[in-house]
């Protein structure tokens, strides 16, 4: 597609220059593109496999033409050419006829049942209407075409099978075909770089059946032209090649992430094993967490239910998964106090997991008989329809406590304000930075960002889980120290240090 539009653009350029040349005699104001001298070609052209990718791409680099932004300043763009064997045209024609055949078959397949249905209708009519008899004998016509189609269909299908076979063979032969360089092929434009740009990535597609498929482990040859406003006036570079593309096994641009994950993983395991051995771990109190217990007690006293909203996340959002564990702790206490719990859900998988969680919590609390499936129920998967339903529930059930834990979007404030209207105590926690202000303003307690993830460890009070909090703290300390070092390095122009932390691609 990209290439097509580029070709169109090129065509427009050519068409214009041609028409300008022809209309020289015309009296109207003519274009005076000043006569341009050929520009200097690009130099130091290199080509190598695209880094850190799945293959199917070649990166080209060069030094700008002397007339780009300097000298005559006449270079407008660079055109990148790749040597393409004529064999690719053969492949293309196979592709085209294959698609054509597929289209025919599809057409026949939709036509046949319709025609048969029509034929049945005609046969049913014992006395055809006069008009039809005069103009065409429809029955005969349909019988003929149906017979013809039925004959053609297997033929086409056979042809399709043959063509698929050929295509498969032809695609396998692409690397072989490229070895004939420079015979039996020609240079074709594969892209354009704007003036001032000294690199280009020729990116192909990995799907073998695609028109833009670029085979790996194939010898490619490249050339770059410096092009002026007059497309005919250009300068070609030296040819580079052969160069092959292939997929990498490790993305070196992501090394900082790899190191970070590894270090963090080790920290977590270290502190968890230490906690398991029974080391004392201190965690500071969090107001929002302490409020959870009070809120459950309050609901019991008032004899009103507790509403727990898991948010709009799916079970694939870590925020929602963190919310499940909080729900587990809350449900256990709710079961102990024998209070009513309401959990309306937005996502069916979230509902399923929440049901498991709550059921296990009731079992844990020793009250499996109090559990029934409809504590956790599904509403709908549409944002504001869900909000409408939860709002209605809040005003009708008047829960003593509303908890909003998980992933929330624009509905955060609608829920929290309606809850406040219903006179409920509200505790919220979300990892959506944009929604935090609204929860802070409208709720009694808010777990800000990371506190949501810490909440399950806090509520569980198990040493293993508290151990992982310690790992998080050490990671934060590392971030603070590295940021300070980075600031120092930046002020001293020591960019090599900072670049160690840059994640590319």
């Amino acid at each position, binding site marked *: 597609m990209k290439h097509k539009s580029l070709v169109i653009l090129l065509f427009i350029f050519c068409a214009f220059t041609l028409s300008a040349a022809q209309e020289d005699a015309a009296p109207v104001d003519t274009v005076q593109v000043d006569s341009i001298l050929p520009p200097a070609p690009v130099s130091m052209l290199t080509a190598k496999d695209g880094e850190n990718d*799945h*293959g199917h791409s070649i990166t080209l680099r060069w030094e700008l033409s002397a007339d780009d932004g300097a000298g005559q300043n006449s270079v407008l763009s660079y055109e990148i050419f790749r040597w393409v064997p004529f064999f690719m045209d053969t492949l293309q024609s196979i592709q085209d006829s294959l698609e054509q055949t597929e289209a025919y078959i599809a057409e026949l397949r939709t036509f046949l049942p319709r025609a048969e249905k029509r034929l049945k209708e005609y046969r049913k009519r014992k006395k055809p209407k006069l008009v039809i008899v005069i103009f065409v004998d429809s029955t005969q016509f349909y019988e003929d075409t149906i017979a013809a189609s039925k004959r053609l269909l297997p033929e086409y299908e056979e042809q399709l099978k043959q063509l698929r076979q050929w295509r498969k063979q032809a695609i396998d032969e692409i690397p072989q075909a490229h070895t004939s360089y420079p015979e039996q092929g020609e240079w074709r434009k594969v892209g354009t770089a704007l003036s001032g740009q000294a690199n280009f990535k020729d990116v192909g597609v990995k799907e073998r059946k695609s028109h833009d498929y670029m085979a790996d482990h194939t010898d490619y040859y490249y050339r770059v032209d410096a092009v002026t406003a007059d497309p005919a006036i250009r300068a070609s570079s030296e040819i580079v090649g052969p160069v092959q593309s292939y997929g990498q*096994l*490790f*993305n070196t641009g992501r090394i900082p992430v790899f190191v970070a*994950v590894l270090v*963090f*993983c080790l920290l*977590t395991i270290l502190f*968890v094993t230490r906690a398991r051995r029974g080391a004392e771990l201190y965690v500071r109190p969090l107001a929002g967490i302490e409020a959870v217990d009070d809120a459950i007690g309050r609901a019991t006293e008032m004899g009103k239910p507790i509403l727990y909203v898991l948010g709009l996340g799916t079970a*694939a959002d*870590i925020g929602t*998964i*963190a919310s*499940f*564990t*909080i*729900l*587990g702790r809350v449900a256990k206490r709710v079961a102990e106090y024998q209070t009513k719990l309401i959990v309306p*859900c937005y*996502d*069916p*998988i979230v*509902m*399923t*997991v929440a049901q*498991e*969680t709550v*059921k296990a919590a009731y*079992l*844990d609390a020793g009250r499996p008989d109090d559990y029934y*499936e*409809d504590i956790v*129920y*599904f*509403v*709908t*998967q549409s944002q*504001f*329809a869900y*909000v*409408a339903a939860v709002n209605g529930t809040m005003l009708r059930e008047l829960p003593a406590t509303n908890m909003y834990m998980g992933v929330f979007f*624009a509905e955060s404030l*609608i829920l929290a*304000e*309606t809850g406040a209207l219903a006179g409920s105590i509200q505790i919220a926690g979300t*990892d959506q*930075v944009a929604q935090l202000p609204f929860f802070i*303003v*409208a709720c009694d307690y808010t777990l*800000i*960002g*990371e506190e949501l*993830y*810490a909440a399950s460890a806090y509520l569980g009070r198990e040493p293993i889980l508290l151990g*992982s*909090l310690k*790992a*998080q703290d050490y990671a*934060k300390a590392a971030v603070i120290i590295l940021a300070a070092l980075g600031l120092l390095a930046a002020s001293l122009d020591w960019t090599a240090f900072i670049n160690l932390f840059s994640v590319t691609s």
Partner: protein
Amino acid sequence: MRRQIPLALVFIFGVFMIFQYFVPHESSEWIYEFLLDWIYIIGIFALALGIWSLIRVSVAKIKARKANWGYPIITIAGLFLMILFGFTGYRDGSLGFHFMTAEGLSNPMFRNFFDYILIPIQSTMFALLAFFIASAAYRAFRARNVLASLLLVAALVVMLRFNPYMGPIGPYVADAASWLLNVPNLAAKRAIIIGIGLGMVATALKIILGIERGYMGKG
């Protein structure tokens, strides 16, 4: 068995997906795309459970004949009508059931239900925010302590940013507002985002390592 196999599955697939991120090779990409399709497809199958839950809760309410028992009838009717319209459509000028092709999406009744029921109610629910943001500000922006005052003052300054009735201090308020948005706001967001990132990674690791099992019934 019933507990160990799921935990093993979480561990194996979790570790695989972590390593997959660092391997750009085609084969790793293929598995990645395939696994993402699993997630989608499992999610779609689960919708049947959701719809079943919705129907059961509604029917239970209707049967119990408690307050408001009539309204769930509307829910059930809406649900089944919409599903009916979505699977029927015109082809060659005749109306019929079409499951494998999407004629239902252009069924005029399906469109009408979408345009004149879903859109008005949903956008009005969204529009309620205009009011709730006002009432939340009125209720909560009280200068009770330092933190509440900071919140209040920052919000007031930003809200007065374009106000034309500020006289000579107008330009200063506008500058202060843009400073608040670009300096403390940026710092706050950065701190929260880094914290959330670490919290997410820690939670995900705990799940993969089987330390945190709350999501499938603890223990």
